[in-house]
């Protein structure tokens, strides 16, 4: 295998693994900050117990998010040296700002929140968890501005043999990146909501700590209903942006070969990339693709054949990932609404409780599928229509990358398995019992 493919696989492994943990961090910080706020306002120890229980799970998850992020900051230099040289003037600052503005905030105040409960005033303690949440979200802003620039490069000029920054505000205001950011955050919060729902369901099925978990379950379910519906609407909006700015990606997402107006959407498609057509196209919804892509059933949708072969992304992966994401995305509101109606019947309908537990990783699968669409669909470009992926790679021997890829996969799968095991162990154990009531406390 060549250095380009190995480096792509390594980046994919590193970034996917990192993004197993980050979305849950984003989702849970908001819930923790909410619980701490309720505790601060009411003084009710029950909220503190909830913050401690969910906080423990949050921390087990957080640790791996941090360490897997460090390798990513260096991957651009190690494996994508030519990319880094060519676009570092625009791209580098976004990563540097992320670290300076967000990571310090997150990592310093998580210690204040975790270790400092009895050392700082209640107000500072509350503030610290909000600063952790702010840090996590500010960090997502800058990293997605960086990715958004690779998707839709703006605010640069070609000078001195490289891309140089022309307008910082154009890079920060990149509309494509903001669409991605909202989509990513909604999905991350949805994962948090499903996590809270699933873990709570496990305890509710067993009638364990019912009051405690009934409250968490209600919070998780309401959030899941709202977020999953918002995601469908916003996802459609973002899809139209892709159709406008990255038509070859959209065509690959739908395995749409011929440029046509009134383009239908087929519910069942089997792409055949080698023959530039689909093996099977069945169950057409007339004009649906035109509506989804451009909001008009008569609109023309550009097909893959309109692009030279060397400018097309891999169709099968992009297509399947997109289908998986949309399919799961349509399932989430149904699950969440059912969960709301059956919220008091989980002990009786254990099969549904189990369905909710098994559904915990599904938003994560959808998130991974979504990023596959974004990144594989961007190919062959590392920066959209500015630099090709194979031009960005480092001049390093293939065996180095092969070995490091194996090491990444080995270490990451081991640590990931241990982390999931610990999460499950602490999730099952449930919250610490309420301390005995002190008189006149």
């Amino acid at each position: 295998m060549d250095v380009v493919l190995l480096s792509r696989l390594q980046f994919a492994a590193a970034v996917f693994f990192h993004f197993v943990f980050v979305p849950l961090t984003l989702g849970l910080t908001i819930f923790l900050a909410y619980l701490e706020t309720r505790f601060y306002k009411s003084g009710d120890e029950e909220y503190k117990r909830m913050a401690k229980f969910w906080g423990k799970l949050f921390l087990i998850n957080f640790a791996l998010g941090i360490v897997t992020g460090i390798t990513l900051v260096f991957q651009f230099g190690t494996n994508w040296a030519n990319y880094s040289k060519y676009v570092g003037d625009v791209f580098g600052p976004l990563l540097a700002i992320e670290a300076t503005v967000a990571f310090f905030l997150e990592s310093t105040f998580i210690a204040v929140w975790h270790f400092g409960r009895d050392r700082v005033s209640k107000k500072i303690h509350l503030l610290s968890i909000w600063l952790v949440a702010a840090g996590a979200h500010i960090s997502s802003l800058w990293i997605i501005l960086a990715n958004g620039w690779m998707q839709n490069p703006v605010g640069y000029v070609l000078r001195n043999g490289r891309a140089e920054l022309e307008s910082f505000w154009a890079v920060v205001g990149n509309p494509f990146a903001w669409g991605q950011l909202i989509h990513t955050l909604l999905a991350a919060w949805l994962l948090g909501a499903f996590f809270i729902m699933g873990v709570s369901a496990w305890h509710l099925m067993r009638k364990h700590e019912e009051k405690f978990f009934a409250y968490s379950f209600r919070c998780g379910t309401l959030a899941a209903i709202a977020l999953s519906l918002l995601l469908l609407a916003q996802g459609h909006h973002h899809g139209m942006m892709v159709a406008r700015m990255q038509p070859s990606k959209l065509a690959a997402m739908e395995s749409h070969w011929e440029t046509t107006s009134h383009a239908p959407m087929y519910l069942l498609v089997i792409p055949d990339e080698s023959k530039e057509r689909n093996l099977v196209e069945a169950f057409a919804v007339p004009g649906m693709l035109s509506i989804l892509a451009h909001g008009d059933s008569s609109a023309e949708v550009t097909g893959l054949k309109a692009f030279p072969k060397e400018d097309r992304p891999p169709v099968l992966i992009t297509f399947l990932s997109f289908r998986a994401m949309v399919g799961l995305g349509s399932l989430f509101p149904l699950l969440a609404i059912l969960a709301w109606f059956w919220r008091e019947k989980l002990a009786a309908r254990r099969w549904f409780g189990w369905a909710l537990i098994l559904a915990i990783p599904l938003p994560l699968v959808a998130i991974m599928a979504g990023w596959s669409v974004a990144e594989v669909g961007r190919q062959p470009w590392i920066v959209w229509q500015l630099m090709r992926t194979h031009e960005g790679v480092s001049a390093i021997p293939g065996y180095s990358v092969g070995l490091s890829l194996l090491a990444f996969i080995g270490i990451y799968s081991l640590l990931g398995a241990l982390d999931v095991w610990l999460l499950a162990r602490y999730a099952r154990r449930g919250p610490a019992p309420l301390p005995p009531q002190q008189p006149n406390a």
Partner: protein
Amino acid sequence: MLELIWFILWGLLWAIYFVLDGFDFGLGTLMPFISGNEAERRTVYNAAGPFWDGNEVWLITAGGVTFAAFPTAYAVLFSSLYAPLLLLLFGLIIRAVSFEFRSKVDCPRWRQLWDRCHFIGNIMPALLFGVAFANIFQGLPIDAAGVYHGNILKLLQPYGIVGGVLFVLAFCMHGAIWLAFKSAGPLHARALFTAKFLWGWVLGFSVLFLLMTYTYTDLFAKFITYPVFFMLPITAVACLAFALVMLFQDKPLEAWLFSAGYIMLVIFTGIAGLFPRLIPSSLNPDWSVTIHNAASSPKTLTIMLIVVIIFVPLVIAYQAWAYKLFSHKLTDKDLASDSAY
């Protein structure tokens, strides 16, 4: 001018990183030798407890700022040092998870496993940072296109190894002093003793490293043109001496600050000698990566300068506040807390 400011800031960020994460590395490396029982081992972990995560971010920032200010240096350096850098990062990953995982299961064999990982995850990055920086001081075999012509074994030449050992020793001393500051009773006494013991080794290897720097590198060429630069290694050694004085007076915080000063000045001795090069080429001086051929555009450098001028002092302020918040000596009550490692 902008490039010069960024060169100094670049050195400063790495120096702050080594001062802060340095004592974490030292604590983790010394842990198997300095602690006699589970309570003492946990004291060593918790001495770094609320700090290591925030300290590590200085590395991300140093890396990120290298990317933003000197993208070519970022690309050449990290692709050249591919294998050692990834080993180092794997070490940091293992260190971080050993902090988090160890305390989560109350089983001696589980804890022993993570203690071993913790040791490796601390000594390996410390050693590799030393080897890497010594090799940078000496120059890397890079060609005109910034492509590296060497391998990981080439880095392990005498000067690189002495640099690595010096980093490990200095961080261990730095960590022992921090442990003396954070602990009481027998562990405190042992930490003080260890720091004094290591002091002699640090001094010895510092002198050896300086002498080898004179023979193996051209860093001192600049010092002869600008003799004022000699103040850097001289003050470094003076800081080291003051650290020992403070140790004998049982003032670990003051000793730690002098030890921090020593680490910073050692880094700046190297940085001053490198100027204006970021990565000297050992193949041809003209192929060196310098602040002139590696820097970002004036616009990017200006924007990043504004960001750094606003946020780095802010970060230092709230991190200093957090250090003060957790500066107490660790007691049994701290270890009994459900938030302790």
